[in-house]
């Protein structure tokens, strides 16, 4: 089995772990927090709502009283500082579902948005509106247009047709998340690219901290890279592209560190880690 396929399947297992950790009926993370910290909270994704926590944090309204949401936000932020948006690329089943479902649709029916537009301004335009819409139009989209809620709905019975009562905004979310930006988008992660505040938050932090030497980073060895474009084709976020001079480039603001590119690269030109550790490994290697 090819490395890329193996990695794709391994990621799938981790996304299932993520679903068991954060979503009912299992919600292991919430249960652990309630058991060990004796916090009162809901045992589903709403019990650790990252969207409202991020919104409150940016607006300076975050309550510092101990809650599952606060603990989750702290862990997410620390991970983003040192490792990047690992939650997105390694644990979040909500982004993964349309990515994996999109594999059933042939590529010729999909839109490759990253061919036409830079996803970064779209992503941060969404994030800015996510934060400011309560002040501009008097209405928040924190709960409306939430794909995490719809994923929870699917797990609560929606998978076998029992969706409960849906509002217009939930229906629009489902159509955007699963259909337009899911099945019919190259990579299946259009919603992650354009409409997820959690990913935008992590990438914003990481775009600043990645300049520090002690932060894990995706690196391209341009001496090994032959610009074959396999990683560009396989990237679910469209974060990689071949630049004007034929050199492979990474848009760090769009990368979710799924490391599919690393697994797919036939020349092993892409790595993820600490620069110093790599240098140390090379220096300490026994002489041949």
């Amino acid at each position: 089995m090819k490395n890329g396929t193996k990695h794709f399947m391994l990621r799938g297992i981790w996304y299932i772990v993520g679903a068991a950790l954060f979503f009912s009926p299992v919600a292991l993370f919430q249960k652990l927090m309630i058991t060990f910290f004796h916090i009162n909270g809901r045992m589903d994704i709403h019990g650790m709502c990252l969207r409202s926590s991020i919104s409150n944090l940016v607006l300076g309204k975050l309550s510092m009283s101990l809650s599952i949401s606060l603990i989750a936000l702290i862990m997410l932020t620390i991970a983003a500082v040192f490792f990047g948006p690992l939650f997105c690329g390694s644990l979040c089943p909500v982004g993964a579902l349309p990515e994996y479902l999109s594999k059933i649709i042939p590529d010729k029916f999909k839109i490759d948005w990253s061919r036409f537009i830079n996803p970064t301004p779209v992503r941060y335009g969404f994030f800015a509106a996510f934060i400011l819409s309560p002040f501009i139009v008097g209405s928040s989209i924190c709960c409306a247009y939430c794909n995490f809620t719809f994923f929870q709905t699917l797990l609560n019975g929606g998978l076998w047709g029992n969706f409960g009562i849906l509002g217009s905004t939930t229906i629009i979310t489902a159509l955007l998340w699963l259909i337009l930006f899911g099945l019919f988008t190259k990579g299946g992660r259009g919603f992650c690219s354009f409409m997820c505040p959690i990913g935008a938050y992590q990438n914003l932090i990481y775009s600043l901290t990645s300049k520090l030497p002690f932060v894990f980073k995706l690196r391209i060895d341009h001496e090994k890279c032959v610009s074959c474009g396999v990683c560009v084709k396989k990237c679910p976020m469209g974060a990689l592209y071949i630049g004007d001079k034929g050199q492979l480039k990474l848009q760090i603001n769009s990368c979710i560190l799924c490391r599919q590119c690393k697994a797919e690269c036939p020349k092993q030109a892409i790595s993820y880690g600490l620069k110093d550790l790599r240098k140390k490994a090379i220096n300490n290697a026994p002489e041949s």
Partner: protein
Amino acid sequence: MRKRFGFTVFTFIVLFIAMFGAVNGLAYYRSFVADERGMIKVSLSHDAGTYPVVVDITKQGLPKKIFQPGGITVYSGHSGGITNKTSDDLNVIVKFEGFSCPVVFESTDKDFDLLTGELMRTLTPNQAFAMGIELEIARDQLSQKAIAEGQILFINADNGDVLATVHVSVVNSKGSRQE
């Protein structure tokens, strides 16, 4: 090489503003369809107040009209909404009556029993809980002016006294009167 929109400063700003505007538009639409659910805020008291709530299906957004026009929710909101305004601890049970369509309880409160309508914890003064009901109305009934009607009763489980009544009406303001 293919030119992509958004890689110059000007086009970056244009895309940013376009998405910012579009999302604010989505937020505005959300406020426009907020009346799809009936919202209730109830004070439980010995005076047994009555709270009318009217859900007009003509205010549903287009997606809901297409996919699920007969699914109606009457809800107090996630953060509470049903508040003990007495000076006593209350054991509350909720019942609904009078509806001609299937009705189920809905609640995000883990102490609310969705089958029996019983709140499994004692409600202290000024404490609140969240609950609601979901109605499934057949499509052929939606063209009538008066579609469904019923009541939600909040009852003191210790002595059977009614603490509050929510009178629910589902209407179609552009519908035809039933003959």
